[in-house]
C-alpha cells in the first residue's frame, strides 16, 4: 500500500527555536531520510511556513485567490513523506521515527489506488 505521512507542527513555536535546536532537527531529518529510504519512503519534502501559503477556489467559473492556508489550526502542515509498505502497522512504525513526531503530530493517510 501507499501512504502519505503528513507532518503537522506548531510553526510559531518552531520559529523561536535556537540555532542549535534547528541544526539538531535538520540532522535528525537527514538521518531519517537516509534510513527510511530502505524502508519504502520514496519521496518527501519540507514546506515553507504557512505565511507563504495561497489558497485558490473556483466558484461559478471565477477563480478566488486568498492569502493564507486552507484552515487556521494550532499545528500546521510542515512537510510530508510518501511511503510504500505492507500495512498500517509498518506505516505507524516509520511515522513514529519522523523527528517531527516528537513535538508535532503525523497524520497517516492511505493513498487511493485507482486503476
Amino acid at each position, binding site marked *: 500500500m501507499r501512504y502519505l505521512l503528513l507532518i503537522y507542527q506548531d510553526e510559531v513555536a518552531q520559529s523561536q527555536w535556537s540555532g542549535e535546536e534547528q541544526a539538531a532537527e535538520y540532522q535528525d531529518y537527514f538521518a531519517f531520510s537516509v534510513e527510511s529510504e530502505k524502508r519504502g519512503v520514496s519521496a518527501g519534502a519540507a514546506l515553507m511556513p504557512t505565511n507563504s501559503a495561497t489558497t485558490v477556489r473556483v466558484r461559478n467559473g471565477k477563480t478566488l485567490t486568498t492569502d493564507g492556508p486552507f484552515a487556521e489550526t494550532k499545528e500546521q502542515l510542515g512537510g510530508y513523506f510518501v511511503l510504500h509498505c*505492507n*500495512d*498500517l*502497522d509498518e506505516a505507524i*512504525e516509520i511515522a513514529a521515527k519522523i523527528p517531527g513526531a516528537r513535538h508535532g503530530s503525523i497524520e*497517516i493517510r*492511505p493513498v487511493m*489506488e*485507482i*486503476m
Partner: protein
Amino acid sequence: MDTIQQVVSETFSREADRILAALIGTVRDFELAEDALQDALLVALERWAVDGIPYNPSAWITTTARHKAIDRLRRENTLARKQVLLQALLEQDEQRGEEDMEDTAIPDERLKLMFTCCHPALALDAQVALTLHTLGGLSTTEIASAFLVPVPTMAQRVVRAKRKIRDAGIPYRVPETRVLGERVDAVLCVLYLIFNEGYMAMSGSELMRRELCDESIRLARLLTTLLIQESLYHEVPEALGLLALVLLHDSRREARVGPGGELVLLEDQDRSRWDSGKIQEGLSILERALHMRQPGPYQVQAAISALHAQAKHPEDTDWPQIAALYDALMRMTPSPIIELNRAVAIAMADGPLQGLALLDQTNLKKELSDYYLFHAARADLLRRAGRMDDARDAYTQALKLCLNERERAFLNDRLVEVTQSIELEGL
C-alpha cells in the same frame, strides 16, 4: 429439511467465529468474507438436502465460502486491489485442489482477528462493537441493545470500522514482538470494557447485560488458549489475570442487585449468594498466573477481588493486604481513581482518619473534584469519623454530581441519616 437447517445453523453458531477468521485470513476483507459466508450457508442448505451432510461441515462451508468470494470478486473486479486479491485466491485454490473440501482442518486465525478488531487505529467504541460482532457472534441489534444505542447507529459503527480496516490497511496478523505487549493490552482493555458494560450498567435488559459478561469471559478464555497455542507465553499472565478478574467479579453478580433492582454494596451483600464455582475457578486461574512471576495490573486487580471473595463475612476482609495491593497497582498504573480506592482500603485497615488524610491531598482533591464517588467516599469516612457537618456537605456535593438514580437514592438516605444525627446533637 428441518434437520439440514438445524445442522447448518448449529455448525454456524458453534464455529462462526473460527470460520469467519479463516475466511478473512484468505480474502483479507471483512465485508467480502461475511458476504461469502452468507452465500455459502445458502448453498449448504440446498446441497446438503440432496447430497447429505458432509463429514466435516465447517471445512465444507469454509471452502465453499472461499469459492463464493472468488465469484463475487470476478463479478466486480474493477479495482486493482481486488484483482490482486482475486489472483491470490485463485492461486491458493489451485494449490489446494478439489479434494480438500472436507479434509483440511480450518486454521485457527481467531487471535489475528482479535488483534485486528482491537487495533488502536480504530476508535475504542468501534473496537468493542467489532469484537462483539465478529468474535462474539452477537448481532448488531443485540449489541445496540446492550449499549443502549439505536440499531442504525451501531450498524454504521460496525460498517465504518470494517471499511477503515480495509482502506487504512490495518493488518491481519499477530503483531511484531516490539508492539505485541501493547497490542495484547489493547485486546484485554476491550474485553474488560465489554465485561464492565454488562456488569456496571444499571439500565438495559438483564439478559443482554448477562450476555456481555458471558461473552467477555468466553473471549478472555479463548485469548489465553490462543496465546498459549502460539507460544506467546510472555503475554499469558495478564490474560489469565483478566480472566480471573472477570470470573471473580461475575461470581457476585446475583448478590449485587437487590429485589427492587437497587445496587447492594459489597459489605451488605448476602455472601451465600456468591457463585462458589466461579470463585474457585477465578482463584485457581489467578494462582496459575501468579506462578508465572510476571505481575501486571490485571493480576493485581484480580488479587484484590480474590481477597474480597475469600472473606466469609465483611469483617474478615484482609484490608491491610488490599491496601498493599492498591499500593502496587498505583506504582504500575498511577491514577487518581486507584489512589481513591487505596485511601478507602487504608481507612478500612487503619481507621477513617488515615484514609481522610490521603483523600485530602490537594492534587487528588483537585483531580477528582467532579467525580461523585470521591465525594461519596469522603462523606462516608467523615461520617465514620464522627465529623457530621463535614459529612453532610460531602454527601450534598456527591448528590450534585451523581446522575444514577439508584445511587442517588442511596446517597440521599445517608444524607438524611447524617442530618438527623446533627439535629439530635443540637437538642
